[in-house]
């Protein structure tokens, strides 16, 4: 894992001091709320329906157990004993007091953490693959590149007042587990014909009210031009992104309105110019960062055998573990989607327990996933049963990774001032229904995502099944979408037709999944059957 040197620590400490001063000026009244707002946002502090919300950055989703422990302690000390893991691999606290915030940031800085640029119109926390460094299907660990970008984007003086927020994701596997093409910039680490590692750039993806899948803008940027190329992409956006309408201000709209060719041409021009400006860190810096991500001391020659005679354990292993690059190890996902629970929530005690488990069984490391779960990336198979028993005892052993009950849901009307409809109760109903009727396991992989309004915080466009809360003559109404995906085969879901009330939407999902079970061919997931048959027959079973 990356650890700070005295430069990194000094930068974060300077930020805490700066924010302490800004907060003081705000409380004393010399700084107006209007002027304070963008400053607090760039420190992750939002004003919500009931209180301040603080979003803490988890760079590329990677955490040490000491860091995780502090996240649990903050939940107890400054919140109501809970933390909420988000779709961008961060953690949020929903009941924060303004005057406590500088102290929280100081507590975080002690374990090399911060809330820098987790909101506001700037380059946000960089996200990545939660299996990075552990999975056999990546060409290289993507996190050193994400760390290089983190340092470059932190307090970049030219890009702190962009037209809109800017999200970057870095992956290194064709199996996209991080929704890379739904980011403002998605970077996939690739090898060229000469076997050299470089970056494929995708620009202009995003969700919200006008979703776009990012098109590829450059197939190969060499590693010693990565920062320069990113800077060119950002400069063109900062200068020409729309500022007249906040709904058209994301880079996706600029790329769409200019056209990919014209946007690329402008970037190339800026890139050629910036190449002469000497702004690229040397490759030695990348090597320095890479050394931090060296493999932990894996034991060699371990057996892959696993005693699966306990059926509940066997089910959890099947659902929640993934192949590891080293024999005898596995990647284990801890589901934060218990039946009827709030997706992504964990209590302070659960957070601290996960920290301990990482220490004992996963070389001190955890990951946050964009589907709001927690990963222990390096678990010895020989330890898996003991680990599972401890998870069971803490109510953390739900065996539903990527199942219909592994739902992404936004906060919705329960917390959010922009919502049309509630999201959490719908998620809870679906989770209950599909667990009770036993269909969850039979259905296999089925990604279901819920947003309480068109802003799409719950990724409904990218769900195999998506649910969108709309306001229909003052009552809550839910539209159903089918066929979205955020993997390597990214696609946007299509609305089936007229919406439903809360019970109606759950019934409709029951119908489409029954139809899938009747029609599926060998090895087909829900999404595959939908793609083969198209919308019409699904519509027929819902409305026919």
């Amino acid at each position, binding site marked *: 894992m990356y650890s700070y040197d005295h*430069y990194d620590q000094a930068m974060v400490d*300077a930020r805490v001091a700066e924010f302490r*001063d800004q907060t003081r000026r705000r409380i004393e009244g010399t700084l107006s709320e209007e002027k304070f707002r963008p400053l607090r946002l760039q420190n992750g502090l939002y004003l919500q329906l009931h209180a301040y919300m603080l979003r803490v950055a988890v760079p590329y989703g990677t955490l040490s157990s000491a860091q995780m422990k502090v996240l649990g302690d903050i939940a107890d000390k400054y919140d109501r004993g809970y933390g909420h893991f988000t779709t961008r691999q961060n953690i949020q606290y929903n009941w924060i007091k303004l005057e406590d915030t500088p102290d929280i940031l100081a507590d975080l800085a002690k374990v090399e953490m911060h809330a820098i640029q987790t909101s506001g119109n700037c380059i946000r926390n960089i996200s990545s693959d939660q299996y990075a460094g552990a999975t056999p299907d990546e060409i290289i660990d993507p996190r050193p590149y994400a760390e290089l970008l983190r340092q470059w984007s932190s*307090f970049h*003086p030219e890009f702190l*007042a962009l037209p809109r927020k800017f999200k970057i994701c870095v992956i290194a596997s064709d199996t996209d587990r991080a929704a890379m093409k739904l980011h403002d910039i998605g970077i996939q680490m690739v090898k060229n014909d000469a076997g050299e590692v470089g970056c494929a750039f995708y620009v202009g993806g995003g969700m919200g009210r006008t979703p776009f899948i990012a098109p590829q803008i450059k197939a190969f940027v060499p590693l010693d031009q990565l920062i320069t190329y990113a800077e060119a992409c950002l400069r063109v956006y900062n200068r020409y992104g729309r500022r007249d309408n906040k709904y058209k201000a994301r880079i996706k709209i600029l790329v769409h309105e200019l056209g990919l060719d014209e946007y690329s041409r402008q970037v190339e021009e800026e890139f050629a110019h910036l190449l002469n*400006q*000497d*702004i690229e860190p040397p490759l030695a*810096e990348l090597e320095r960062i890479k050394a931090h991500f060296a493999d932990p001391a894996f034991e060699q020659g371990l057996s892959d055998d696993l005693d699966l005679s306990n059926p509940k354990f066997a089910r959890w292993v099947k659902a929640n573990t993934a192949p590891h690059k080293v024999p005898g190890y596995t990647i284990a996902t801890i589901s934060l989607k218990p039946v009827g629970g709030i997706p992504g929530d964990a209590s302070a005690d659960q957070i601290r327990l996960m920290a301990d488990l990482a220490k004992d069984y996963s070389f001190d490391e955890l990951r946050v996933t964009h589907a709001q779960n927690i990963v222990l990336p390096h678990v010895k198979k020989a330890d898996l049963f003991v680990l599972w028993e401890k998870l069971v005892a803490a109510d953390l052993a739900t065996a539903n990774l990527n199942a219909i009950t592994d739902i992404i849901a936004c906060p919705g009307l329960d917390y959010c001032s922009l919502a049309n409809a509630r999201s959490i109760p719908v998620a809870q109903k679906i989770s209950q229904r599909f667990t009770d009727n036993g269909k969850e396991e039979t259905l296999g992989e089925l990604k279901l995502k819920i947003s309480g309004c068109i802003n799409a915080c719950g990724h409904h466009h990218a769900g195999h099944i998506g649910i969108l809360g709309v306001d229909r003559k003052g009552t809550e109404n839910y539209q159903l979408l089918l066929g979205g995906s955020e993997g390597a085969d990214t696609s946007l879901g299509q609305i089936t037709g007229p919406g439903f009330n809360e019970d109606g939407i759950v019934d409709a999902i029951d119908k489409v999944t029954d139809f899938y079970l009747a029609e599926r061919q060998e090895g087909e997931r829900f999404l595959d059957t939908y793609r083969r048959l198209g919308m019409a027959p699904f519509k027929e079973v819902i409305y026919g």
Partner: protein
Amino acid sequence: MADPQFLFRDEAASAPAVALSAFGEDTNATAVRIEPGEDARALLPHLDRLSLVEVTFPAFTDGRGFSSARILREAGYTGELRATGDIGVDMLSHLRRVGFDAIAPATPLDPAEAETAFNTWPEVYQATVVDGRKPIWALRHGL
């Protein structure tokens, strides 16, 4: 024309700045003002006759002026580069980093707070080049 509250060069230019649209016709003008939507690169053919470029920030949330400033410095402009408009204390360190050497906030800022703000960052992560500061990666590798 706003006089700079903060000046990082020997003296402030005194010629009144003309709008970019008028600058094209007025071949004697040595000072020009550019708005956020205007292309700073339009000035590149005229840099050697300019002693002042005023970059306006009508709203502090509009960051286009940061790019304009850096582009001018990258092109070798050495005259006064002045930021004017809705400028808060928390922008000061960033304005310096993109090459402004004169800052004229519409509402004067508290001098003590400004002093703290200019010194916010012990070091910097990026090479903007135009501020002359070595980034952290250069320090790490003795460059």
